């Protein structure tokens, strides 16, 4: 039973624009598309997995057993990718939160996976824990800007099986879709068992997967054993996998944007080919997150001044027939409520619906994806809704044009007392977190302070729909078994 006046779950509010931009048409993309295929065919990709090498070799790829290098003929790539679905469902424990990729919506989630929080009880900055993630997940469940779950922070107190503890925290505190960050074949098997328990069976998991997984590549041009063998486990179970590459200009990728895109795209495409060979029709999502190193210190920069062509990540993946996780946000700001935090986050939130990526991330963390503060999630949620509304069309029917009302008021009059005003004013002016009137009745309150109050209200009073007791118990048992296996 929820406390009186407790916050309730906001309806899912994905991004959508009727004004999607094509930055490059097919001809414009051709140099990158062709270069990617050529790279896969000539330079090739390393797969540090005998299982993956065997699948690829059997399908006709040129495998160098000594170096684990795989060269993928163009025809093999194109045939395999033709099996990859462009549209599919990311299921949720609550079916009303199912996400239909390819429907024109862009579904958002938080940044991840941070490693620190500012404790909202003590103000102490410290390493993140499973309990933190449970609390943050309740915020994710409440907010309409969050369409699917990411582990916003890591369960840093849970050791080698933290990734399983994270998805356990997820399912116990949200009924939205989970995208885990599970790596390694043993943990992936445990995760599939957990997902099967939540979905209500293997067939149901395949039909409406309540979980997907994010797996990182190793730039340049390498798929490590933990990542790719986890991917194969998920592919076999029908669990969608989102491969993410982070080519870093000048270090793990060429110092040119086009070169970095080619490296990133080759890694994603190679993984997708493997999935389609192993489990034809396996749902794969791609994400090319170009990152930058400060040339003096090698510190990661989220958004340098010249951050052009982020559109390209989505367009390039779409050209290979893969859904994209794009506009991945993030900020290098040191804490919430700053000019930098707002500027960097907002730019990405505006880009996402314009480039038409199916999924996006990017709200909640500061300090280059490291630090969670609850007020920052609310501030970013506010930016998200500003971006979302910027692309909504406005009605132009008779009621909205209001010519009869304008006629009745006449030149020099006012609309304050008109019934039409009363009927529409609550929708006409949606107040931002920055528009809470202060006690003097004249000035707006500090939005960071307002955001913190709202965040604490959710953290203290919001109660998500609980997981059925027997399922929750089964998840606990599976995680405990994984813990025990690690100890052995």
């Amino acid at each position, binding site marked *: 039973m929820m406390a009186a006046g407790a916050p309730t779950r906001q309806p899912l509010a994905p991004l959508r624009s009727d004004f999607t931009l094509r930055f490059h048409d097919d001809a414009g993309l051709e140099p990158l598309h062709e270069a990617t295929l050529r790279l896969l065919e000539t330079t090739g990709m390393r797969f540090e997995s005998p299982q993956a090498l065997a699948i690829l070799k059997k399908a006709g790829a040129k495998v160098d057993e000594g170096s684990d290098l795989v060269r993928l003929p163009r025809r093999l790539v194109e045939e395999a990718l033709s099996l990859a679905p462009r549209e599919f469902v990311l299921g949720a424990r609550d079916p009303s939160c199912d996400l239909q990729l390819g429907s024109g919506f862009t579904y958002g989630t938080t940044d991840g996976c941070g490693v620190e929080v500012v404790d909202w009880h003590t103000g102490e900055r410290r390493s993140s824990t499973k309990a933190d993630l449970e609390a943050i997940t309740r915020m994710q469940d409440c907010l309409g800007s969050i369409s699917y779950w990411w582990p916003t922070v890591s369960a840093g107190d849970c050791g080698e099986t933290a990734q399983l503890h994270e998805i356990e925290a997820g399912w116990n505190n949200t009924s939205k879709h989970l995208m885990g960050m599970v790596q390694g074949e043993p943990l992936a098997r445990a995760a599939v068992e957990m997902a099967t328990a939540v979905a209500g069976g293997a067939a149901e998991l395949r039909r409406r997967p309540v979980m997907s997984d994010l797996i990182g590549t190793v730039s340049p041009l390498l798929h490590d054993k933990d990542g790719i063998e986890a991917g194969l486990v998920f592919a076999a179970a029908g669990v969608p996998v989102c491969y993410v590459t982070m080519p870093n200009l000048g270090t793990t990728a060429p110092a040119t944007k086009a070169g970095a895109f080619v490296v990133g795209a080759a890694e994603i495409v190679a993984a997708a080919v493997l999935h389609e060979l192993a489990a034809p029709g396996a749902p794969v999502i791609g994400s090319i997150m170009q990152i930058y190193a400060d040339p003096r210190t090698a510190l990661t920069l989220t958004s340098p001044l010249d951050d052009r062509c982020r559109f390209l990540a989505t367009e390039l993946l779409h050209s290979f027939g893969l859904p994209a996780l794009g506009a991945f946000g993030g900020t290098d700001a040191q804490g919430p409520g700053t000019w930098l935090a707002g500027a960097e986050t907002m730019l990405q939130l505006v880009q996402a619906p314009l480039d038409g990526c199916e999924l996006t991330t990017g709200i909640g963390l500061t300090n280059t994806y490291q630090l969670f503060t609850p007020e920052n999630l609310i501030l970013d949620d506010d930016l998200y809704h500003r971006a979302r509304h910027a692309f909504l069309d406005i009605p132009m029917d008779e009621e909205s044009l209001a010519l009869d009302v304008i006629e009745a008021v006449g030149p020099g009059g*006012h609309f*304050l007392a008109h019934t039409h*005003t*009363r009927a529409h004013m609550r929708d006409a002016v949606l107040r931002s977190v920055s528009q809470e009137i202060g006690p003097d*009745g004249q000035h707006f309150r500090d939005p960071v302070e307002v955001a913190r109050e709202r965040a604490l209200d959710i953290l203290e009073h919001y109660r998500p729909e609980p997981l059925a007791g027997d399922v929750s118990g089964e998840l606990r048992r599976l995680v405990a078994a994984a813990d025990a296996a690690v100890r052995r």
Partner: protein
Amino acid sequence: MNDQLKQAIIDGNEAVALAMTQALVATGATPREILDEALLPGMDVVGARMREGECFIPEVLLSARVMQACLDILRPLMAAGDEAGMGTVVIGTVEGDLHDIGKNLVGMLLQGAGFTVVNLGTGVTASDFVAAVKEHQPRIIGMSALLTTTLPHMSETIALLKDEGLRDAVKVMIGGAPVTAAYAAEIGADGYGANAGMAVERAKELVG
């Protein structure tokens, strides 16, 4: 029945409010009782909701208009000299200034709070305000200005009230975008509201 009338004021439900007012009159309730036990408490709730940000200005205005419609029933029943609620307020935008939406809004909310409002319009000179004080004997005059260039006319009016020996007979409130509490104190005004709702609260304090 008082509770139903109070709720009708809060809801801005004119049909129910008028019916309840007439029914209360029929039972022998005096206009003063109806004001004090239903109409004004209803507007108090609306005012509080406005302060809390729950109630929007158009909704407050609706309640105020319903309140006025009820007062129209009660006025003929009032004894001579009995004020319809809180007393009279004379309001106007000062000389040289044509902005009046904020001033009119305050006027409507004052009416809703039970004040009788005499609205002198825009471009009101100091002598116009003084003449209105003599004619209507208000408890408060309210001056509005939106331009920094017209602000000095507020202090001119206060000076003229003093010259005419009327300053102690009437409270002076000022408001408008460039007006601050400090400015109000500086020119010797009695009250200032940062927004329309706060202006009404201050007016009630001044006559309370």
